[in-house]
């Protein structure tokens, strides 16, 4: 190996050297590069989307740094420890959710944050990791594909936190938590028949759930099907973001030249709708490049998941990789008008500390599962 380094070109030497260093830190070099490219792209766009606000960029940089630290730390953790701590983490999260819901109930309003004085903390973010970990832990010692009994247990494990988040109410995050948990179950080999059956039940449940939705939630769904019914209200977001993307064309209007974004026609331009800013300023090519970077990250993550050698690692790693893609798809889908508007940020690009830290923490876990694979017992 050393000879290889000396005989290679300088660039190759550097790359290999970096890979060595990454490996020493229990990180995956290729995945890091993919994530870094997405993050840098995100910062460039954010500078324009925030109205050339340098403080915003600095704060986003801080978020990125915090996420990187979380990733680095979690990458060092022994997967066995991760697995064993899963139930406790899960239990801790559920308790926090109960507390938040309780405060919200007393305060008579939507409550998602837990103010710890120094940091404001969103327990539902924690559950995005805790739920798939719990499901993977639950399946680890059980034969796959899971039996009916196992499935019922899993359903309960997913339903409790999801229900609590729905009560906050935060439908978008609840859906993401449910998806993260469900992906574990699907990857564990849930039979296609059952998937189809559940889809049918889900549709029926959606129908039923409609009755329990808040008015603003119903409105979001309705305006998704016909944005023009509410041009200045809920439909405004969808109309304006489609105008932004559509007017961007193939090559875009240029960095900081997007009239929709710069003149504030586009709502939430630096958070949930930043995808539209890219579409407007960098065009179809810019979006395609972004999707390509995401695809690379997801593909690499899935590859890493496949290299792991025990059930817990495999299921959790693949769930994390797929959840990442689901985020991308839901955000891009809602901004471009394919999906209803739900509050899902564009991973690593949208401005926001919580999601940045959670996502990078997830990748830290994924890398830990991969890089410690030889250490793990069955």
């Amino acid at each position: 190996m050393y000879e290889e380094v000396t005989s290679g070109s300088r660039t190759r030497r550097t790359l290999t050297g970096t890979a060595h260093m990454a490996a020493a830190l229990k990180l995956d070099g290729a995945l890091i590069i993919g994530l870094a490219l997405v993050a840098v792209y995100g910062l460039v766009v954010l500078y324009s989307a925030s109205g050339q606000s340098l403080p915003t960029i600095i704060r986003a940089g801080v978020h990125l740094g915090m996420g990187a630290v979380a990733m680095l730390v979690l990458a060092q953790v022994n997967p066995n420890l991760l697995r064993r701590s899963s139930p406790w983490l899960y239990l801790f999260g559920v308790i926090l959710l109960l507390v938040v819901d309780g405060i919200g109930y007393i305060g008579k309003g939507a409550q998602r944050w837990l103010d710890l004085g120094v940091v404001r903390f969103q327990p539902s973010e924690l559950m995005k990791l805790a739920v798939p970990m719990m499901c993977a832990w639950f399946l680890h010692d059980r034969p796959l594909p899971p039996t009916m009994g196992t499935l019922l247990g899993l359903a309960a494990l997913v339903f409790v936190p999801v229900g609590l988040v729905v009560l906050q109410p935060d439908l978008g995050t609840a859906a993401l938590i449910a998806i993260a948990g469900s992906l574990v179950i699907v990857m564990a080999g849930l039979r296609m028949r059952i998937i189809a059956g559940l889809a049918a039940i889900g549709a029926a449940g959606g129908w039923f759930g409609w009755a329990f939705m808040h008015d603003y939630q119903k409105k979001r769904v309705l305006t998704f099907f016909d944005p023009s019914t509410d041009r200045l209200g809920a439909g405004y977001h969808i109309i304006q973001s489609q105008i932004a993307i559509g007017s961007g064309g193939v090559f875009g209007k240029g960095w900081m030249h997007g009239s929709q974004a710069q003149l504030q026609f586009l709502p939430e331009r630096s958070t949930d709708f930043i995808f539209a800013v890219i579409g407007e300023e960098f065009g179809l090519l810019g979006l395609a490049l972004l999707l390509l970077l995401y695809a690379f990250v997801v593909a690499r993550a899935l590859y890493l998941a496949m290299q792991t050698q025990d059930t817990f690692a495999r299921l959790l790693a693949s769930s994390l990789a797929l959840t990442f893609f689901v985020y991308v798809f839901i955000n891009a889908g809602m901004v471009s008008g394919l999906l209803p508007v739900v509050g899902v940020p564009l991973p690593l690009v949208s401005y926001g500390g919580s999601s940045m830290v959670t996502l990078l923490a997830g990748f830290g876990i994924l890398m830990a599962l991969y890089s410690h694979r030889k250490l793990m017992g069955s």
Partner: protein
Amino acid sequence: MVQGVRIKDHWQEQRLFERRALVAGLLIVALTLTLIGRLFLLQVMRHDYYTELSQGNRVRTEPIPAARGLILDRNGKLLAGNQPAYQLELVPEEVPDLNASLKALVQLGLIEADTLDDLRRTIRSRRPFDSVPVRLRMSEEDVARFAVRRFEFPGLDIKTRQTRFYPEGEVAVHALGYVGAISEPDLQRIDRAAYSGTALIGKLGVESAYEHELHGGNGFREILVNALGRSVQRQGALVPDLHTRPPTAGDDLVLSLDLAVQAVAETALGERRGSVVALDPQTGDVIALASRPGFDPSLFARGITRGEYATLTDNIDKPLLNRALRGAYPSGSTIKPVVALAGLTYHVLNPDKVEFCDGVFHLPGSSHLYREGKTGRHGHIALQDAIAKSCDVYFYGLAATIGVNRMASFMAPFGYGKVTGIDISGEKPGLLPTPEWKKLAFKRPEDQIWFPGETVNFGVGQGYLLVTPLQLAHVASVIAGRGKNFRPRLVTGLRGMQGDIQPIAPVAGKSIEGVSDADWVRVIDGMVGAATYGTARASGKGADYSIAGKTGTAQVFTVAQNAKYNEKTVDERLRDHAWFIAFAPVDAPLIAVAVLVENGGFGASAAAPIARKVMDAYLLGPDGKLKVAAKAPS
């Protein structure tokens, strides 16, 4: 797989997982392609559509109002122009303490305390960055009072806007009209787009009649706005590509009015209610059109208050009434030259035959007496003197001989009973009575009958006959032109932006047919007699030019059969109206005048001197001699 107890089969599970991962990977590819497809639809196929939408989003078109055309007199003197007016405006978001600022303005006397609530409501209803006018029509003094304290009022500033101003004030107001705030009925008939950004519209007179020419074409300016509607110069690296179209100013109006003559006419009327109309018989040009009392048209341009308007409408002298066009009065004896022409043309009058006037007239078989007017008994009198001395008895008999229908049909071409067609609106037609008319005008059958005595009264311009000063000025100009006449007009040309004047050709009226030249001369001689030795001799004295005139006195109320009209005992408002019509110089008339003084008493004493002053002002040079231009007949 084993039935019953199941144990973990790691190899099997690995394969299962790999299959799932493969499916997931394919699913990811499919979903990504779906996304790309959607983006392709938006960014390639519907790109033009969304580009248009985004353009409309950020660019707002703001109108630039065109400068209203000026109004000039025949010598290019300014009668109506544009002037910046001051108003106090407030930008809500820049005012730290709105209530304190408003209270301080009340203390300064710039706003009234009882309007505060309305004002606050207005301010609240606007966007915080919009400038809201809190005080309009600031006088110079108001501006000064605010200016010294300006530092105490952050967010408040004095702004200027173009408004109409009339440098001569009340002069010629009834000819010019005025501009006022666009009203709801105005909005119904105008093209709203053409008036966006414009606050004022012509209301009366030439301001209204030539609104289209004066208004001009609005320009526009595209401004970059953000989603809040706030105008922004530049946002980030986004440099706007904006279009601007300058407005095209309205045409200036060149009027036939002669400001100097107009001023003389109004000064001569003074505080009396009345009207003066002077026409050029050779073109129909209105040299002067005065109606007193008047009012200051600037009141309306700067926004008239309720109180000011009430003062105008409640005034018993009716300053808003345009007496020249809308004041309808009996013509009095000014009708006599036309009746004489009718008699001559119908060959029922021998101009040289001497009649006897003993001061009263009665129809055969009737005991009703028709009195001589103010001029007493004339004794033996022929046509020329009958006109010059205004002998009623002579014309009582003549009217009875001609008959009402023939008289009316002869008079109609002179313009009695119909509008002259002057180029401003609001003109009243007056009334040329006939038996036919009476049948339609009255309900009760006994009222519908035309009595012979009414014909007699008609012959001296009393009774049902009603004329306006403009109509009589036109009659005077018809006689001056020996039957040739022109439609009266105020605007003779339009001046474009380059200063080029586009003249408007005079419009000839239908000439009077059938009157012989000799008969014109006979009647005009009678009118010249009136101004030299007859009723108006005092006013004709010492003129450097020849004058043909006719006095008239219109009854306001009827004196009882045996009573004598005594000017001193009759209430001022019930006194007779005084008329005088004239034209000069007689051989090549340059000016025809009609003067009405309401309740002025005798035409000779109240109206004729005014006409003389007007004619002097128009015809004489500064040296008191006839102007060169006036001497040479065109």
